């Protein structure tokens, strides 16, 4: 922990200062993803610290500029408490995904104009093939690559997890290209378990530099989707020969990628498209502000929640006025989705597997298959609950 006094000279060369509004500046460290919003005077103090002035010298300089007394030591202590300025050895120890430590020059070509044109071209070509050949569009049956349901689910789950990690790696690469390291973590969006790359450091950068990292995952998803659809298109027209088994695996990949891209469009689940929208509309905390403004209508807010809403950026409040309609529609849709798809599919899978467990000879191949199926089904249903419990325990520990 740093001890400060009037003669301290702060190491702030790594900090980014960016004007957010007329009298609001974001001061932060993209490497750790910690940032605070300060008034114009605070931003000026950081500039003076960066120029090598001590706390006392910076205060004197600013007092001369404004003609008002300035408590620079108090401001410096706020930066330290917020973790914006810290012992650099601690920063080095911070948990960062090793993928995101790739040097920027290595990954920058993946997010240049040519690369983005390629990503968009893949997506548009795929959409065209879906229109021209409707049988290429995915259906739920594409999950069943093999007659053996357990083998199909195993392969599907492995492919989905691998492609999800690739999606997250692309986020991390895009973050690394603009100098922002990231972390990978398991999270939950409504009833869906998700892997998530934490790119909080991006919020210290100008908005124009955030879009690439936010959209990078969808970019690589589009490439994989195209790579799975194009061979099937050529095969269905008799232009190329492919093993029928490979065609079924490609169809399963298409189902996985389409589901993933469709999921990203559900902005109210704080997906990649939500981050794009929040950036474009200049919001800082749109999701929480929306949620709390709706919660306030049906029950009393806790004091800390009321404070968040009271101190919310006016732009967040303004956008939340229409965004909450989408948020509400999304909640209703999720109940519908769980009722119409998640529960029936879990019911069918459990029915199948229990039938096998009770009907097949104990410890036979089929019996183990039934057990594996039950495990898959329960994992899919309970993973979001596990994340809820884990997050609550973590929050309790943090308070303690």
């Amino acid at each position: 922990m740093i001890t400060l006094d009037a003669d301290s000279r702060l190491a702030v060369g790594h900090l980014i200062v960016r004007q957010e509004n007329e009298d609001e500046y974001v001061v932060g460290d993209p490497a750790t993803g910690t940032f605070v919003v300060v008034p114009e005077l605070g931003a000026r103090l950081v500039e003076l610290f960066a120029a090598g002035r001590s706390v006392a010298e910076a205060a004197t300089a600013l007092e001369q500029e404004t003609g008002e007394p300035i408590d620079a030591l108090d401001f410096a202590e706020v930066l330290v408490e917020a973790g914006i300025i810290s012992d650099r050895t601690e920063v080095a120890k911070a948990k960062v995904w090793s993928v995101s430590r790739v040097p920027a020059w290595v990954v920058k070509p993946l997010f240049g104009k040519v690369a983005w044109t390629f990503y968009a071209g893949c997506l548009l070509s795929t959409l065209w093939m879906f229109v021209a050949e409707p049988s290429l569009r995915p259906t739920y049956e594409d999950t069943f690559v093999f007659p053996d349901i357990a083998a199909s689910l195993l392969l599907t789950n492995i492919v989905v997890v691998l492609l999800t990690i690739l999606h997250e790696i692309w986020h991390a690469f895009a973050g690394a290209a603009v100098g922002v390291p990231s972390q990978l973590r398991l999270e939950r969006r409504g009833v869906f378990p998700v892997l998530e790359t934490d790119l909080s450091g991006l919020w210290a950068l100008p908005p124009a530099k955030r879009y690439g990292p936010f959209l990078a995952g969808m970019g690589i998803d589009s490439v994989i989707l195209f790579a799975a659809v194009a061979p099937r298109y050529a095969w269905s027209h008799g232009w190329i020969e492919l093993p029928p088994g490979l065609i079924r695996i490609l169809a399963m990949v298409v189902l996985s990628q389409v589901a993933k891209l469709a999921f990203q469009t559900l902005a109210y689940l704080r997906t990649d498209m939500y981050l794009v929208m929040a950036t474009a509309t200049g919001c800082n905390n749109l999701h929480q502000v929306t949620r709390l403004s709706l919660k306030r209508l049906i029950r009393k807010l806790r004091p800390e929640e009321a404070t968040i809403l009271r101190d919310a950026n006016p732009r967040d409040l303004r956008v939340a006025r229409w965004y909450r309609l989408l948020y509400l529609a999304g909640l209703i849709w999720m109940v519908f989705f769980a009722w119409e798809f998640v529960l029936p599919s879990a019911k069918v899978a459990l029915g199948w597997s229990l039938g096998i467990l009770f009907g097949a000879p104990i410890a036979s191949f089929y019996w183990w298959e039934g057990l594996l199926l039950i495990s898959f089904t329960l994992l899919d249903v309970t993973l979001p609950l596990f994340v809820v419990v884990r997050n609550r325990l973590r929050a309790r520990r943090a308070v303690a």
Partner: protein
Amino acid sequence: MSQPLINRLRPRRMGLAIGILVTVLSVLTMSSLAFGVLLNQFDDKTALPCDQVPGTPEPFEGNNHIAYQGASHAPYKTKPPTSGPHSPRVVIPGIYREPIPEELQVHILEHGHVLIQYAADVAPADVEKIERIGRQYPRDAVIAPYPTLDHGIAATGWQRLQRFDSYDEDGITNFVTKVANRYNHGWRNKATDCVSR
């Protein structure tokens, strides 16, 4: 003088445009699933009358799942089978080069697909032509060998059977397009089994 004003307006307009675009995408994704369910409920298509459906109608032999592949069950009355007890395992439409067990064949039919199976006496060139039909209808047809078939080609749908002595492109295509999806865990669009009148 007007440049600074434009600079101030552009980000706001872009923000609004992206906000609208993302909202529309969200709504489209949600509604495509919801409308899909609703449209299925209010589907008013009418199935072909029995006299226009190719093949012969076959009696209903049940639709229960057997506990596992290989478990004993009552013998099928047709060859290939067209209904009856079947495996819980799933085979999706496509081309297969290995024979498909009869218990799995029935499950394919229960999902509304059709099976085009060929005996050992069908020439490789004709097998290739049959597979080409499979490529044209990749969501409806399963193509596979059927070594225990005495000869020729057998087309099956749920409670429907047609035999071909030799390759007949029009006949097979007609069966695929007219029989597929008449049944999917129940008769659809007012179709009937054409047995019980």
